[in-house]
């Protein structure tokens, strides 16, 4: 039996500059932040990042790790506009590949199903066809002849998602309100990593939640990371809510290069264990 357990550092060591990576969760909810922090400590850069964007995207932009951004929105939820993402866009620091949210789902699904595209009505008449040169038109081969938009498969070199529970083999379980699209990210990726609040024995998964909470199958997972409080400062319901005070401090760090340097030194230039220990002192 494979032992898939690894650390954030070991997962990030599988990456190299120029790769395309996907990050699960949604906005500022259930993001694999301990992995994002490990990525920020690494020398990997020039990344194409695919995400339902939140502070994962903002942090990677602020740290200069992003070459290209593939997204439908970037938001901190309680703070609607992500300040570091805005700064990166407004300074022209990142290439932009925008999608409609539904298109984004189809692109992930196409990748997970190994087809080059999926067709949709979404996008017709809007400027997304002007702003995303990866989109194409496709005609229905049937008698209706309808002209539709072809959304390309969003394949990726690696994907990272965060769950509430998992077993050591990567059977991942979400206990919060929404699965988001985490299973599709793993299906779309070559290297697939799942972090979780707690690694528990397989036989205990069914006492934590119903079968339909078992979103991720081990068939989709190469590496399993135990990361208690690993989604901090995003929410990981029901284990913990978003740390709104911390998120505010994070957002304020976009005000000036000095503020960012200060935030970075205080919270990003330390190991995950030290980060978590420092948080406990501050709370």
């Amino acid at each position, binding site marked *: 039996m494979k032992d898939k357990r690894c650390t954030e550092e070991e997962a990030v060591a599988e990456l190299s500059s120029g790769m395309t990576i996907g990050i699960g969760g949604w906005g500022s909810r259930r993001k694999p932040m301990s992995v994002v922090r490990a990525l920020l400590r690494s020398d990997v850069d020039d990344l194409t990042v695919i995400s339902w964007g939140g502070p994962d995207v903002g942090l990677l932009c602020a740290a200069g790790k992003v070459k290209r951004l593939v997204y439908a929105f970037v938001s901190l939820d309680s703070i609607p506009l992500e300040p570091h993402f805005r700064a990166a866009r407004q300074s022209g620091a990142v290439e*932009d590949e925008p999608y409609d949210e539904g298109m984004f789902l189809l692109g992930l699904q196409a990748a997970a199903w190994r087809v080059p595209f999926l067709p949709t009505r979404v996008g017709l008449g*809007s400027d997304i066809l002007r702003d995303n040169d990866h989109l194409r038109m496709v005609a229905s081969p049937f008698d209706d002849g309808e002209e539709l938009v072809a959304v390309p498969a969003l394949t990726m070199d690696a994907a990272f998602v965060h769950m509430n529970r998992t077993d050591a083999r990567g059977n991942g379980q979400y206990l919060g309100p929404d699965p988001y699209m985490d299973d599709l990210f793993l299906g779309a990726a070559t290297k697939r990593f799942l972090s979780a609040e707690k690694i528990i024995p397989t036989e205990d998964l069914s006492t934590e939640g119903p079968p339909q909470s078992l979103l991720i199958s081990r068939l989709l997972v190469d590496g399993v990371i135990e990361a208690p409080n690993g989604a901090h400062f995003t929410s990981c319901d029901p284990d913990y809510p978003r740390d709104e005070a911390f998120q505010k401090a994070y957002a304020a760090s976009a005000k000036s290069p000095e503020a960012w340097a200060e935030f970075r030194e205080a919270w990003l230039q330390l190991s995950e264990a030290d980060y978590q220990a420092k948080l406990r002192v501050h709370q």
Partner: protein
Amino acid sequence: MTGQLDGLIARADVCVVAMAECFRGDGEILANPIGTIPMIGGRLARATFEPDLAMTDGEARLIANDEAFEWPRGKVVEHFNPYRQMFGWVWNGRRHVVMGGTQIDQYGNQNFAAIGDYARPKVQLLGYRGAPGNTINDTTSYWVPNHTPAVLCATVDTVCGVGYDRAAALGEQAARFHEIRFVVTNLAVLDFETPDHRLRLRSVHPGVTADEVQAATGFELVVPDDVPTSRLPTPDELDLIATVIDPTGQRLKEVPG
């Protein structure tokens, strides 16, 4: 209660009723009003004249509660409705969404992605979100809490939500599900019931004149000879809003006065 002293009706309550009216005739569909007053308005429609509407808790459930927020007595859950299911409703044609917009033009094209040249925006906003898919698949209305010429503007910098001129250019087949019903603002209700689907002043809120609405709009509105006043809430509606749907008065924070 704030704003209702001296027999005056709060502007927020007029806006709530106008939002509710967006859903009149919709029957059994998912009413998905996004924003404080839209959510209250949707609840009001369901609690009164559109009882078959389905509505979310703002997250992953459809709930039967009349309260718009917080649900102190718990949620009455009808359906599991995660984000991916929401796209199912949109593409199945079972939804009427109310969105906001940083810019909306006279044909109802909407932008909340970025201000200025998209390639290098002056101000980056949210991104396209779901606007292209919402507008081409289902009925859409808009909520504008601050009606100004910058919002109701001659040209939007990026078309996220598709307007009537763009829909017409697509042709009947592609645009067969497109409908923008109303634009409700803090000053007035507007619709597109004109031969070329240009924005028309449908009603003004009490205390607002048609000239004031035109002055707050960055293009020429179609203004009928007689512009009615927006429908006022009935005493029963006011009671329902203030005691059940929004007892903490969140609507009055979004639209004061």
